[in-house]
């Protein structure tokens, strides 16, 4: 029998028992949709927590330390595979004072490469990144630490500065450890304000300048202070290497350690999170599979009834020469059809439920908690990746075919003589 005739044969039988087949398909659809939606919550929460950690840009970051860190080594690190950015932040090894009009603060200068900072997801709350040595950006709390003389001496309440900072000129003064100025002031312009740190308790009052500013600061400092070769240099720094993807952090970390660097990353901690969610997702898929197994009872019943009802027809087909394997295949195709249609419908419904729940659930949870935006967290309740679709489809269609297996076997064993004796 040609395959299209087999399909046609199955289709004819299905259309003959529309209601019964519809109810069975419905059960298969509900079971499969339950599995997909349930497991999608695991995928959604996993993604949400991963995103939350990743957005803090800490997971792909490796803190690298070497006693002889310099620009040459930094450039070598940039060339390595899977390295997205190498941020070399340098700090001034002297006291510093910043003035904005009458207000002063003890904010410190951090010198960095903004191209690399950009690659490592450094972002601004407002303004732009510096383009020249005279341009700087300031931390989000910079304004709060600008104080008048009265405020400094405790004669009045500390108010800070809450005006607009972009475009403002500040003077930057190096000092010795007793507070005496070293050399002349540097005039700088604020062109951007950094984003608030993710952690509430972090305060960022620093000013950030481009590496171009280093010669100017060194010139001022060493014009007055004699350079001693044994002493520490004016700038000291730390290096953080950013991997291009989380999966590569482990290998990169090992590579750097093998090359003699001291390395720290929290990717290992994230690995534990992945293991936990893997177990959770497997558990949810298992629970969902139980629903499919319950639906499979319906498929088994439908197919058993189909075989019983068609005993005489099967007998006639066998009598005129139908191969028993063909009979078995026709019934297996029928149960597989129920599984396939049920699965396709379930996938469509699940995506719908997923989209709706991602829209509605945050509103409901926010209302229940009395918060407007879930504490600033971007929560995704349900995600249906293609892998989940493949797993659910395999389970659903597989279970449908297994359910149809026994009735199909029963059909092949029907005795022709007994079947032909059945009343019409």
């Amino acid at each position, binding site marked *: *029998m*040609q395959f299209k*005739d087999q399909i046609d*044969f199955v289709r*004819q*039988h299905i259309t*003959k028992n529309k209601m019964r087949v519809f109810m069975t398909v419905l059960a298969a659809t509900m079971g499969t949709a339950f599995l997909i939606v349930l497991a999608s919550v695991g995928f959604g929460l996993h993604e949400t927590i991963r995103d939350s950690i990743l957005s803090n840009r800490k997971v792909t970051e490796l803190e690298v330390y070497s006693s002889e860190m310099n620009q040459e080594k930094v450039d070598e690190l940039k060339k390595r595979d899977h390295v997205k950015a190498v941020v070399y932040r340098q700090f001034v090894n002297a006291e510093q004072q910043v003035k904005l009009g009458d207000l002063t603060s003890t904010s410190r200068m951090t010198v960095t490469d903004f191209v690399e900072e950009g690659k490592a997801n450094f972002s601004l709350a407002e303004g732009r990144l510096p383009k020249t040595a005279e341009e700087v950006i300031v931390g989000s709390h910079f304004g709060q630490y600008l104080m008048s003389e009265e405020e400094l001496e405790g004669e009045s309440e500390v108010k800070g500065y809450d005006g607009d900072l972009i475009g403002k000129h500040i003077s930057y003064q190096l000092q010795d450890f007793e507070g005496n100025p070293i050399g002349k002031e540097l005039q700088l312009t604020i062109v951007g304000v950094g984003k608030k740190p993710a952690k509430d308790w972090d305060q960022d009052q620093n000013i950030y300048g481009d590496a171009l500013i280093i010669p100017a600061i060194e010139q001022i400092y060493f014009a007055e202070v004699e350079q001693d070769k044994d002493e520490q240099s004016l700038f000291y720094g730390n290096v953080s290497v950013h991997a291009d993807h989380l999966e590569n952090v482990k290998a990169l970390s090992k590579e750097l350690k093998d090359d003699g660097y001291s390395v720290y990353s929290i990717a290992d901690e994230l690995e534990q999170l992945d293991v936990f969610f893997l177990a959770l997702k497997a558990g949810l898929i298992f629970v969902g599979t139980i629903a499919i197994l319950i639906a499979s009872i319906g498929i088994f019943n439908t197919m058993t009834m189909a075989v019983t009802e068609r005993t*005489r*027809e099967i*007998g*006639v*087909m*066998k*009598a*005129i*020469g*139908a*191969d*028993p*394997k*063909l009979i078995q295949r026709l019934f297996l195709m029928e149960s597989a059809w129920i599984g396939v249609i049920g699965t396709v419908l379930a996938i469509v419904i699940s995506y719908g439920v997923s989209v709706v729940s991602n829209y509605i659930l945050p509103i409901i949870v926010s209302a229940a908690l009395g918060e407007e935006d879930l504490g600033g967290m971007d929560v995704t309740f349900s995600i249906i990746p293609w892998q989940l679709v493949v797993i659910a489809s395999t389970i659903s269609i597989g279970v449908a075919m297994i359910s149809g297996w026994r009735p199909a076997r029963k059909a092949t064993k029907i005795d*022709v*003589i007994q079947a*032909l004796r059945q009343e*019409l």
Partner: protein
Amino acid sequence: MISVRNLNHSFKIGKKGKEREVPVLKGLTFDVADGEIVSIVGKSGSGKSTLLHIMAGFLTPDSGEIRVKGTKTSSFSEAENAKFRLNHFGFVFQNFQLMPGLTAFENVELPLKLKGIGKSERRKKVKELMQSIGLTEVQDHYPNELSGGQQQRVSIARALITDPPVIFADEPTGSLDSETEQDVLLLIQSLNKARGITFVIITHDDEVAHTADRVYRMHDGELTEGGRPHAI
């Protein structure tokens, strides 16, 4: 064409553990020649239907041998039997055994579908055959919309469609009135003459049996007589 040698078969009846064996065929030996109509006539319970079931491969005999065109069919597996039936045998049953969900045309087409023949070739062949048997007008009717005679004609057409060398007919006129019975018997005779098809007819009706070229009479699982109809 068909040779049956020393065929024995018995059924087990009664409750499990207390069954007893009832012999239904006792050492049958006979031949069916190519292109002849053979009737096997006997009363109910004489074993004639069991003989047909064994010859058709629905049952495996306890002992003995059946050869069809030299091929030993009595030791075939179920799948081998099915394949052999599809290519060599046609069947006409007392209660027609048409598929209720298929039209007359589709019923006749079914064996060709099982053989894997393409749609256009199938349709052409079925149309021609139905026209030659006078079924064109009812080809789109379902079995429950046909008279007994029409249903049996459809059943004969289904048996003929694969051009089998042998057609087994189990009480082919058992469900028909006498007028229709004559029509069906005439059709069988004309097909036999026109196409040279061998017919093995099982019947309890002497009148039907006497339309055959050769008649075997069965009694209690044994062939008691065999020969030309007028001689029995």
